[in-house]
């Protein structure tokens, strides 16, 4: 791997993630609009939102940690994107592996939590308390899924997993139950209904985001694009055979993101304890049954 | 060498003349006792050197064994004689005004020396009774109702114990026709049947009353709680051991049988468990120490049940250690005692006494590198070497007891180190010689920590020598008896 290739990966992997992620945001909003028989936002709406937020004249900050929180939230995902192999760009990703990646995915949450904490807004703190609880809820099935996949493919490297699937069958065929459990966890991970108690706009004023304005909010919008992209690509790599080129990978990723979105808007939301209860019951059960088959 | 008879005779004589002397000068009466004891100490020391690694028998009244009265002198008996003299000196009632008490102490010492030295059962019994009488007297000297009740209880159970002892001796006499221990040792086969062993059981339980053996030790807490601390130190530290000496003599010379060992092992274990359990609930320092003392006598019986010279040396070590520690603790109790709540903040009033207290109990618990640890270690290892279910159980019991003991001892220590109420002090402010002696004991304990190896070697020598029936027989019995045997 030469320096040029390295530079390219370092720059383009997050960039691609950002662009694709914006499209996923658009798709998400379109899906919800269509489900509600609306037209939905124009094509560039995600971009407009982000540019506008970054371009605000007033930006209030509650202190250095508030700033650092946003940097960590965005930066953590940028790091995660680099560790997430995509066709043609998998040099650095080999250094980490799926365990490292799943840890990287916790860093943005922690960063955001720090930033929100410094805002000294009780709504924000309540939101974070709920968000971390939700993380506890969805990470258990998620980690079961990661374990099952890694065991099945006999590798903790996503590249190895993709190679295995390219040679054999897709993971979703070989481990359907685990794939379903993964989808469940994904729903929680994306914080979509019915698992969006920590945002709860009407009760706690969007919780963690309550004091986020301007580029702070913009950072979170960027983070959302990364989040959707990561979820889509990660799931596609784990269960849908990844892709040899973006042409084969991206449709799968979009499909993966579209699925929870379509389900999401049909639900109200669960209380925090019910989120844990449901995520610890069904997907975990599915995961364990599936593991029993795999092991 | 025959002057050693004086060990017993001098205090006995002193006991009788002290009331007479007191008529003329109370000062003189007060000092008679200590002077006698000092003379005894000197005698013991000279005898210690003379005896060397051998043994010596003194025949009294011109009759040769197995008929006459015999004193058997070796390092074991001398060791105990020395301890008796020093302990009585330490607890001598300097501030008592009554000469009768001096007499009783002298009587007590005379009986104790007799117990340590005698080599036939009848004399042992006589001295044992004498000791009992002296103790009743001393306890009854306390002029309060609870002391009276305690001494009455002690009297009842102790006399019942004496009856058992006598019964045991009678059985032995019936079986063998002799009461000389050396003589008995030559005809053990007569005694190893059910009748003989039941005699041993009766003797053990009878003497066990004084040796704080379970279940005949219910007097302990009450008596120790009502008598002066020095006297408790004497009783718990020394007199209890003298009763054990009686048992040891019977056990090692005559009854080296598994059934006897098992008996001692079982009562020992029960003693340990019951003592520790009750001490655990105690809220009064003296009561706690009393029951702890019961438990440690239990450990002593367990050690004896190992048998032979190993058992003996461990037993001696335990006795010496317990004498130092429990004696020291009871002497400390002269400075502070009572309910735990009263002891709150003691360490702030007197850090030194708390520290001394701590040293004692740490050694009692067997914390390395204090001597208690080495004793416990050696005991447990020896038990393990014997193997067998009961011995393993004994190991478990001893170690469990240590845990319980830690719990209650440190419950007290914790109270001591709590912040004190400003106005009240738990300390007994008047000068107390006992406290000085307690510190001395602690110092001795610490010094012996450094000399664990030589001391243990010495004790093993003593035990090897004393636990050997052949030496005993050869020393005591005239040749013709041996000739018959061989």
């Amino acid at each position: 791997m030469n320096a040029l290739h390295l530079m390219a990966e370092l720059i383009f992997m997050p960039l691609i993630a950002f662009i694709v992620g914006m499209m996923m945001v658009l798709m998400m909003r379109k899906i919800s609009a269509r489900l509600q028989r609306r037209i939905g936002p124009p094509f560039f709406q995600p971009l407009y939102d982000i540019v506008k937020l970054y371009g605000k004249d007033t930006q209030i900050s509650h202190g250095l940690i508030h700033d650092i929180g946003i940097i960590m939230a965005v930066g953590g995902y940028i790091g995660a994107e680099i560790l997430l192999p995509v066709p043609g760009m998998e040099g650095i990703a080999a250094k980490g592996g799926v365990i490292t990646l799943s840890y990287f995915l916790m860093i943005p949450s922690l960063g955001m939590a720090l930033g929100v904490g410094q805002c000294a807004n009780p709504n924000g703190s309540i939101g974070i308390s709920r968000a971390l609880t939700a993380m506890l809820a969805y990470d258990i099935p998620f980690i079961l899924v990661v374990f099952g996949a890694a065991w099945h493919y006999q590798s903790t490297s996503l590249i190895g997993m993709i190679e295995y699937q390219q040679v054999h069958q897709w993971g979703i065929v070989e481990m359907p139950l685990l794939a379903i459990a993964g989808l469940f966890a994904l729903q929680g991970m994306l914080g979509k209904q019915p698992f969006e108690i920590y945002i709860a706009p009407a009760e706690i004023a969007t919780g963690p985001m309550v004091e986020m304005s301007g580029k702070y909010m913009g950072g979170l919008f960027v983070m959302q694009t990364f989040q959707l992209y990561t979820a889509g690509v990660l799931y596609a790599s784990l269960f849908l055979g990844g892709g040899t080129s973006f042409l084969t990978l991206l449709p799968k990723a979009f499909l993966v993101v579209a699925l929870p979105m379509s389900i999401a808007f049909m639900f109200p939301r669960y209380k925090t304890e019910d989120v844990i209860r449901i995520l610890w019951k069904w997907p975990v059960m599915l995961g364990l049954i599936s593991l029993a088959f795999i092991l | 060498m025959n002057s050693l008879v004086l060990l017993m005779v001098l205090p006995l004589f002193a006991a009788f003349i002290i009331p007479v002397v007191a008529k003329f000068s109370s000062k003189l009466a007060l000092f008679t006792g200590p002077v006698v004891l000092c003379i005894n100490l000197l005698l013991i020391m000279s005898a210690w050197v003379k005896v060397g690694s051998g043994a010596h028998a003194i025949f009294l009244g011109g009759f040769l064994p197995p008929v006459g009265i015999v004193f058997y002198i070796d390092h074991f008996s001398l060791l105990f004689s020395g301890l008796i003299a020093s302990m009585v000196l330490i607890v001598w009632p300097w501030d008592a005004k009554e000469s009768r008490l001096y007499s009783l102490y002298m009587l007590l010492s005379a009986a104790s020396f007799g117990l340590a030295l005698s080599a036939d059962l009848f004399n042992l019994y006589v001295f044992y009774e004498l000791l009992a009488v002296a103790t009743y007297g001393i306890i009854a000297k306390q002029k309060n109702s609870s002391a009276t009740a305690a001494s009455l209880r002690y009297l009842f159970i102790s006399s019942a114990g004496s009856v058992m002892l006598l019964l045991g001796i009678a059985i032995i006499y019936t079986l063998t026709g002799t009461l000389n221990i050396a003589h008995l040792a030559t005809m053990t086969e007569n005694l190893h049947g059910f009748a003989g062993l039941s005699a041993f059981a009766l003797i053990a339980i009878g003497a066990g009353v004084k040796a704080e053996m379970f279940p005949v030790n219910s007097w302990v807490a009450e008596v120790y709680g009502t008598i002066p601390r020095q006297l408790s130190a004497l009783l718990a530290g020394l007199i209890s051991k003298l009763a054990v000496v009686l048992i040891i003599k019977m056990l090692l010379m005559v009854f080296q049988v598994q059934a006897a060992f098992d008996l001692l092992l079982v009562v020992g274990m029960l003693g340990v468990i019951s003592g520790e359990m009750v001490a655990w609930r105690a809220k009064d320092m003296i009561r706690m120490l009393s029951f702890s003392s019961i438990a440690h006598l239990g450990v002593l019986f367990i050690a004896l049940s190992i048998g032979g010279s190993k058992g003996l040396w461990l037993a001696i070590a335990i006795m010496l250690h317990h004498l130092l520690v429990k004696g020291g603790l009871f002497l400390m109790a002269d400075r502070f005692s009572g309910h735990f709540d009263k002891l709150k903040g003691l360490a702030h009033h007197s850090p030194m006494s708390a520290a001394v207290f701590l040293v004692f109990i740490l050694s009692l618990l067997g914390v390395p590198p204090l001597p208690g640890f080495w004793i416990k270690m050696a005991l447990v290892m020896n038990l393990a070497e014997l193997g067998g279910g009961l011995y393993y159980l004994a190991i478990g019991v001893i170690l469990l007891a240590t845990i319980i003991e830690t719990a209650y001892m440190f419950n007290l220590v914790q109270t001591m180190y709590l912040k004190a109420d400003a106005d009240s002090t738990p300390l007994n402010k008047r000068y107390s010689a006992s406290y000085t002696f307690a510190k001395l004991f602690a110092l001795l304990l610490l010094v012996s920590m450094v000399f664990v190896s030589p001391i243990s070697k010495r004790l093993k020598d003593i035990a090897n020598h004393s636990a050997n029936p052949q030496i005993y027989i050869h020393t005591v019995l005239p040749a013709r008896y041996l000739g018959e045997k061989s």
Partner: protein
Amino acid sequence: MTLLDHLFIVVFSCLIAISVVRNLPIVDKLAPVLYGLILIMLVRMASVAYGGDAYLSSFSLDLLGFKMHWQFTALSWYFAIITLVAALASAVFMSGDWGRQYREGGGNYGMLQLALIVNVFSMILLLGSGDLLSLFIGWEFVSWASFLMMVLSPSKLAKKSAVKYIVYAMTGAMALMVAIVMIYAVNDSLEFEQISIVFAQMSGSSQVALVLLLFVAFAIKMGLLPFHLWQAVAYAETPGPGAAFLGAISSRMGMFTIVLVIVQFIGLGGLKSVGTSFANMQTLLAWVAALTTIIPTYIALQQHDAKRLLAWHGVGQGGYMLLGIIMFDSIGSAGGLMHVLNHASYQAALFMTVVAVMYRTGTSDLNKLGGLVTQMPLTFLVMLIGIIGLAGLPPMNGFVSKWLVYRSLLVNGQPLLFVAAVLGTLGTILSVYKLIHNTFLGQLRLEHQNVREVPWSMLVPMLGLSVIVFITGFMPGLILPWIASVQESVGLPVIAHHLGGIEYAKGGLDMIWVSGILFYGFGVGALIFYFLGGKSKRVHQYDNYAGGHFLTSDVRYHYSNNFYPGLMHLIGTWYRGSFQWLENSIVSVMSFFSVFFENIYRAKQPVMLLLIGVVLALLALYRNLGVGA
């Protein structure tokens, strides 16, 4: 004279020196120097950690026929260096203003210094043990030294918990003694090698008994389930730097002995041979470890006192160490061993930050703090690094060791243990966020407006420890050679390592890359943040959206109490206090028997007892000997 003799002599002289000068002002300057000196002695012995031979002491003792000698292996050295660094940091921490405040508050400062060196001395003695007897003696020393440290606090609770500790510790010591006795009884020897020899000769039930006894002994010290109850309160009540030291390393002596005795001499084969293939001793220990990671962590989540929260986490993290080592493979055991050092570094730093906050505000109650980040930014930084380490997130060192443990569980196909470990990590994240949020983030209280950063004497050790937390996370290769030597010396498979991490066929770890990527991400994030957006303006904390409500300083709105209500709503009912119940019921059973025996001693007719005793004794003899005899 070998280097080990020198080490013992130096440590002992330090003990004497500090005990002599402990009440003089000079002890502040002297103590760190002395710990530095011991550290230098250890560094001189460093060859042992790079594959060199173990050091033997030139002297030995022969007491009562038991031989004792001492040795220093890679394992000993590894634990010793952690001990000394923790001690040095604690000594520096307490040497300046903290010590002054402690003295003025009526604390016995000299005693604290003494307790620290006594602890170090006894730990070195334990680590240097060369046979079972010296191990036992060192073990008791360590127990009593910790006890000394714990009772220093004047509070009644501290004393009570210290007594509870010592009862537990004695139980452990007695279990160890029984185990030693079992070993000794076979061949009359107390050498370590006897363990495996004797173990092989034993019957199945004896093997179970031996392993359980050893494990109970060590588990009590380490606070593993179900013996975890003593630890947290006792450590939390220990005076500041003492708590940091104890929390960092003291209970890890249990880990040391587990590695030394169980791993080295009983080994995987030994553990597996006990029990059936489905549920053998290894499974049992692994599950004990897994439950230890979970239960104490979730108890920590409930705490609202910072020190207790940390202390409970200390208990929980012990589970990871055992979980790693019990896997017996190269990565798992490396993770378990490495976690000892990692945990020590961040736990000490975290305890120190809490003590620093207490130094300034006088409380560690998480409901009475908040918003201190502006007042104590460096302390905040240390706590941040510490909690990232504790939660096991990259790029701190806690991540590396946990990664190794996870990897090993994955390789060994242990999904349930894996989930248990993750459950522990997630609980830790929740709980440490609560810690940092309630202390440093959120609303600053009116009474804390004038709080300042702590003095340098306290900051330097904290920052130093956090540098260790970071550097060993960034370049685990600095530590891994030591781990490899330890593995070699105790006969485990040796890990293949390089500066950045480990090499492993099915996916290794290179922390330099991982951290590099992370920092690259942060860098890009910072670029985006600072150059793409408008300029931001700092606002006052009361300029805050509360649904149109006007916030004022007299209204507290810091969200701190019952921080995770949703979670507690669900799992709150699962906290049954079962172990507390167990402990209480043991005490109740004891009381029952105690009352029983007390009644015997109270009997109105003592002579009856005598007669019963005689009759029973005769009966027993009669049955024993038979009629004819």
